[in-house]
């Protein structure tokens, strides 16, 4: 738990003001309040829990070093943090594309703790397949789907984070969903096909 004994009702603006004045607990409270959305976003974007942890750390360290740079008049704090997370995630994706594993394909990465093991396995496989399909989308579609569908942010906020118009967000969302559907169907078909002659393909 971060933020020491600070009242959880304290506003972001006050926490920022106090963090700017050097109050450690205030920054800790900001971290505690937003670490999960930053990490979740980075995880969905990079497809890797390890890279997401690095990105989350980098986001808050970057934010910490430029606390005075945030301007509340230009957007809410979470929007600003999403923006930093987006930049760093994209940067890492560009740099480490060849190193990223498809660890999301591992059904064990699901967080569900179902009572019915069979149903739980099916759910875990569905989630794993969906994560893989999401990871196969081009970044510009993936980020819009992650922000709109998984983080349930309204269109104007997504537009602000991504830096495009609200109509462009709608367009990318529509097209991204269509692409996602096709990829899920392909993965389902591939999963049902017997692997009598497994093939390996690589690009050099």
């Amino acid at each position: 738990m971060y933020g020491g004994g600070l009242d959880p009702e304290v506003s972001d603006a006050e926490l920022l003001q106090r963090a700017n004045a050097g109050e450690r607990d205030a920054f800790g409270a900001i971290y505690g309040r937003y670490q999960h959305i930053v990490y979740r976003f980075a995880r969905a974007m990079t497809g890797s829990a390890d890279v997401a942890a690095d990105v989350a750390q980098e986001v808050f360290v970057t934010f910490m070093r430029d606390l005075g740079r945030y301007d509340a008049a230009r957007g809410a704090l979470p929007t600003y943090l999403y923006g930093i997370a987006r930049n760093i995630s994209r940067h890492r994706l560009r740099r480490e594309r060849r190193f990223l594993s498809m660890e999301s394909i591992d059904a064990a990465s699901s967080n569900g703790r179902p009572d019915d093991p069979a149903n739980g396995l099916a759910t875990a496989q569905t989630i794993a397949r969906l994560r893989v399909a999401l990871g196969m989308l081009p970044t510009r579609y993936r980020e819009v789907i992650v922000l709109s569908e998984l983080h349930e942010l309204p269109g104007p906020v997504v537009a602000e984070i991504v830096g495009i118009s609200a109509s462009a967000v709608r367009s990318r969302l529509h097209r991204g969903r269509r692409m996602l559907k096709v990829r899920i169907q392909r993965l389902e078909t591939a999963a049902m096909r017997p692997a009598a002659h497994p093939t390996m393909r690589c690009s050099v």
Partner: protein
Amino acid sequence: MKTRDPERGEPDLDELLRVLADDDARVHAPAEVGPAVMAMWDAPRAPTRPTTARWVSRVWLGRAAAVAAAAVLAVAWIVARGNIGAGGAAVSHTTLPISAATTGLMVGPPLESESLQIVRVRMPRGALRAFGIALLDPEATAEVEVDVVVGEDGFPRSIRRVQPVSAGHQ
């Protein structure tokens, strides 16, 4: 769990995404991230410069890198011309041709709000080839000192001040 549209036989994407969102909502950053972030807070922080100053300094850094690259090319060209003997035969080098020249090699672009650090390292001369720096005498084995500009992610952004290790510093 409903994952298919019963009428069309297609996956119900909204339902799938809702399941993924529910699964995702339980995710939190690993426990080690928080202490690492707060350790950075506790570490003595360098005074931050105004944003404008940072961009101005980056512009000048870029210009300096361009000038340095031109200087390196000029030095290399002059050295290459000097290698041609009277009879037109190339004279082989046995010493390190890189002097106190500065080179700016962008390994990766800096992030918008990134703080950069300069780390001086000593490396075998041959390692410079890995950074794309042409060596006139690949067989020489001297050591060189370089300043590596490192980004916040630990990756190098540029290399500058390549110079041979002087005898007094060995």
